[in-house]
Structure formats: C-alpha cells, structure tokens
C-alpha cells in the first residue's frame, strides 16, 4: 500500500499539490486525470521520491519507492540502440536480450531494434520508453502519460501490455493520462485532480459518466464532442 498523508508542495510560493489523504492499493491500476498543471506529474514524482514534498509524508508498506519503476513525462533516450536502451535497467543480464526483444514486440516496434534511440520519432520514443520500464517487472509502476504521442492504432498495444503485467504479476500501476476513455479501458480507479487537490475518485466509467463536482463536469464538458 502507498499512502499520502497531508502532502503539500509549492513552487515559488504557488501551491501545486495539496493532498490530505490518498491511498493506493497493491495490484490495482490507477488513472490520474486533471487539467494541465493540476499536479499530476508532481504527484507521481513525489510518490517516486524524485521531488520532496514541503510537508507531509508518503507511507509505504511492502516495496519502497526505491523499487518502483517510473516513466517520466519526458523520458531521456540514451544515445545507443533501442535494444540496448531497453536492456539498460534489467539486472539479470542472462535473459536480458530475450526480454528486451519481447518487450519491443509488445509495443509493436520489433523493426526498430537496431535504430539509434535518440533519432526516434516522438511516438516511437514514447513506446520504447514504456517498454523499457515494463520490461523490468517491478511490483509498482508509475507511468506519466505513457500514451500522449502514441498513435490511435498502437495505443491498444501499450494498454494491453499494461493489463497483461497487471494480470500476470499483480503489478500496481499509477498512470497519468489526458484521455478519459483510456482511463475507462484501463483503470480500476480514476482520480481526478484539480489545482493540486483530489476532487473525485472512483470507478472510471461511473466517475466520468456521472461526475458529481462542477469542476469534473466542466473538465469533461468537451470530451467526445
């Protein structure tokens, strides 16, 4: 379990995250949604320990944040081949190559295995970065917008890969996304952030079809129109 207690974070005096109490259970998939600047990335970074909150604390039971895998919103591609990039984090070098090839297949980019990672197109890079994280088989995985640059015909590959990891290894996922449909397809629970606060949370389909708060309603107003 991951539990955020009275977390506050501000930049230059502006509060960007203000969370009283937020709980993530193991084995579930969470989708975090909210307008730009609502603090989604900051939330994920605090869970991973990349940013320190000004006050409050994050409590962990079981695996600590050190063992979480985390995909930044703008992942860095190392200046060597795609395959080597994916193999980077794998501790056991024996089956690293096989695993990396398999991960690349999962995101539909087998053909690029020898390409230089830093010359990939935006969507290709994002998919490789996601594969690079998922191949690690960590118990908790934080993904900051893994699908923003991915084309409509490949999104399901990434989503299926996530679902598979969740099913087979009981991996916990916390995923930020701008796509409510993706949250519905993927997540057990959606969390709606607004100006750094959790406004609503619940089963995604229910939440997005019948939002309660006016902020959620206006956030979704233009969705599917």
């Amino acid at each position: 379990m991951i539990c955020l207690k009275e977390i506050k974070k501000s930049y230059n005096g502006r509060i960007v995250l203000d969370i009283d109490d937020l709980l993530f259970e193991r084995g579930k998939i969470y989708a975090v949604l909210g307008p730009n600047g609502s603090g989604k990335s900051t939330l994920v970074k605090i869970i991973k320990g990349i940013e320190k909150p000004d006050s409050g604390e994050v409590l962990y039971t079981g695996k600590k944040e050190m063992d979480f895998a985390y995909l930044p919103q703008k992942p860095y591609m190392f200046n060597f081949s795609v395959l080597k990039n994916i193999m980077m984090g794998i501790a056991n070098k024996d089956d690293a190559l096989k695993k990396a090839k398999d991960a690349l297949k999962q995101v539909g980019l087998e053909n690029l295995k020898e390409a230089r990672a830093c010359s990939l197109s935006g969507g290709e890079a994002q998919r490789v970065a996601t594969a690079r994280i998922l191949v690690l088989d960590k118990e908790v995985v934080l993904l900051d917008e893994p699908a923003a640059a991915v084309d409509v015909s490949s999104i399901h590959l990434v989503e299926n890969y996530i679902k598979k990891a969740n099913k087979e290894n009981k991996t916990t996922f916390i995923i930020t996304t701008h796509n409510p449909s993706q949250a519905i397809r993927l997540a057990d629970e959606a969390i709606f952030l607004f100006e750094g606060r959790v406004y609503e949370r619940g089963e995604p389909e229910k939440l997005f079809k019948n939002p309660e708060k006016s902020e959620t309603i206006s956030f979704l107003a233009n969705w599917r129109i």
Partner: protein
Amino acid sequence: MTDILNSFTEAFNLIFSLDREIYGIILLTLFVTVFSTIISSVIGISSGVVIGSKEFKGKKQLVRVVQTLMGLPPVVVGVLVYLMLSRKGPLGELGLLFTAPAMVIAQVIIVTPIIMGLTISAIKSKAECIEETCKGLGLGYIRTLAMLILECRYQLTSVVLAGYGRAISEVGAVMLVGGNIQYHTRVITTSIVLETGKGNYDKGLALGIILLLISFIINWTMQRIQEV
C-alpha cells in the same frame, strides 16, 4: 619571417635526426602530460559529475572556488609542490624532487580544477533529465553518474582536451619541480624555455611545432575514441 621558415626546417630536421635526446624529451613529455591528464580526468570528471548533479548548500561557493582554481598560476603550483617535496619539506623523505613523478603531481594540481570546473557546467543541462530517467529505471547512483558521463562524452572529450592543452603547454611548474635536467626531466616546454633563454628563437619555435604535432595526434586519437 625567415626565422619562422627556418624553424619549420629545423623542426623537420629535429624529428628526423634520430637524435636520442630529442626522442627522450618527446617521450617524457608524452608520459608526463598523458599521465597527469588521465589522473586529473579521473579526479576532475568524477568529482565534477557529483558536484554538478547534486544540489547542496554552499554549492555556488564551491563552484566559484573551483573555477578560480582554473587560473592557478603554474609557477605558484610549482613553488608549493617544491616546498612539499623539498628535502626540508614534509614529503622530502620521498626524494621525489627533480623527478618525473614530481612533474606529474604538479600538473595534476593544475589540470584537475580545469577539468572539474568545466565538467560541472558541461553536465548541468542534461543532468536532471538523465537522473530522473535513471532513477525511474532503478539504476544505482554510480551507474547513473556513469550514464551521465557517457551521454556527455562529446563535451567531456573537449573538456579533457582543454585540460591536456594546459598540461602540455605549461612550463612554470615542471621547470621548478622537474629542474629541466638533461636526459632526466627535460620536456619539450622546458627545452623551449631553455632555447629561447639562450636567444635561439628558431630552435624554440621548432620545438613548439613538434609539441603541436604531438598535441594534434593526441587530439586525433581522443576524437577517434569518442566516436566509437
């Protein structure tokens, strides 16, 4: 002008003279400069990467001091090392004064701050992004720093070459602690000083040309390595 032309002929003659002395001087120059640059690079890059990628109190001040030390005058370093290694000095027992190791020590002191200061600023722009990605992949601190160095290799090569440039062109320190002893601690720069001191400006220039040739070969080798 004719002086300058003469020097080229002279440089050519020196190189192909098969004179054991001149080859000894070239080899010692290579040994001292390459060795001290390697040591300085190891110290300078590793500490520079640590300092550059971390935020801590007093960092600004530390960076200022390091950058100030980029301007350490070789003669001063020479005097300090002399006082340390002199028979009367704290390390006099080692008997290192007027030997090649003394020259290496002095050059390491001169070159390390240069490589460190430039490394700190070279890695800055990529540090945050690479660190975040590496942490996300579960890489340890050492491997993260290694990746940072690897990804900044193009820039760090230049940094090392700048350090090497200082080592190979420096004369004040090696003169003082080496003593410019023929067949023992005479390197190209001290020979140049010796010759210009005697008024042999053309021979000085000729030696300078040889020095630049060596420098060019080192550069060429380094860039080759970097491209691999």
